[in-house]
């Protein structure tokens, strides 16, 4: 039982991850257990064969990284502050447009008097348009009045 217990610790022994007293215990066990010696030898061979970074050339890394870092440093600092300045107004405008369309389509009721007034003035321009061009567009004024009264349908 203790034999198996020792055998399970061979990898940790190889990796140097045991406490000093355990390391001594396993070292003693290795003198008597052939299977564990083989396992340890296999681990060592595997480690040599799999040695990382074989053929990796790191010589070009430092100059390239430092050139990029210096280029970043030489850029004006206010760039990052203003780089996304247009995003907030664009989102606000898009939200307003979506809201107005929803009110116009009758999915939402107008939440403020000023919006209702704006839509009302839009209807005025519709009336002028129909007067000039003689085209009768659908009369939305009544629909707007219904929407303001809470009739979403």
């Amino acid at each position: 039982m203790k034999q198996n217990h020792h055998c399970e610790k061979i990898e940790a022994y190889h990796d140097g991850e045991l406490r000093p007293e355990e390391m001594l215990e396993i070292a003693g066990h290795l003198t008597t257990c052939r299977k564990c010696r083989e396992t340890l030898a296999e681990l060592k061979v595997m480690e040599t064969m799999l040695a990382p970074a074989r053929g990796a050339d790191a010589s070009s890394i430092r100059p390239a990284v430092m050139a990029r870092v210096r280029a970043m440093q030489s850029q004006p600092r206010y760039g990052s502050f203003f780089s996304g300045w247009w995003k907030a107004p664009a989102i606000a405008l898009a939200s307003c447009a979506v809201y107005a369309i929803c009110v116009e389509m009758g999915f939402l009721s107008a939440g403020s008097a000023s919006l209702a007034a704006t839509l009302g003035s839009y209807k005025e321009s519709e009336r002028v348009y129909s007067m000039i061009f003689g085209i009768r567009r659908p009369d939305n004024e009544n629909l707007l009045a219904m929407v303001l009264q809470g009739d979403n349908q």
Partner: protein
Amino acid sequence: MLFSEPSDTELIDEVLNGDTDSFSGLVTRHQQKVIGFCLSMLSNRQAAEDATQEIFVKAFTAISGFRRDSSFSTWLYRIAFNHCCSLRKKSSKIHMESLDAMPNQDRVKTMVSNAKYQSEADGGSALASEKAMAALPEGYRAVMVMRLQGVDYRTIALSLGISEDSVRAKLRRARVILRARLRHFFPDLMSKISEKP
């Protein structure tokens, strides 16, 4: 007069105080490990070099957020692991999308020719050990590479955001897979080890 090299912490302090050139000391100290890690994760030298540059630039950009609750190398490994994983995801997605866009017959032809090209390239230049490593899932591969670089279990666990028990389990499974793969590539060598008295 004794001259001692500044520690990572001292170099980080200098970088934070505006001395950009001090970052070159950190790059020099850690570049070999990072490129080795990337090479094992990506199995491509050019991609590994590009990724290493990118990782150091990311580290420089985020250095003010380095909290010092772990070592600089642990933090760097974490950036490297995340970067390599996202690169692998991206490249597999591009590969799958390009295959999806093809008609069925072309797709099969492309896959067959890729496999042929791969085996020719492997026969010519790629090392068997790299192929064995490439057979590991990325989580196991990261653990194995870090261990091969001499990183202890605790640091591996911290870098990859997993427990030490998980590191132990992943290492054990990775070694089982690697042993089988290496036995396949080097049957003579591995059997000699077993026969030793």
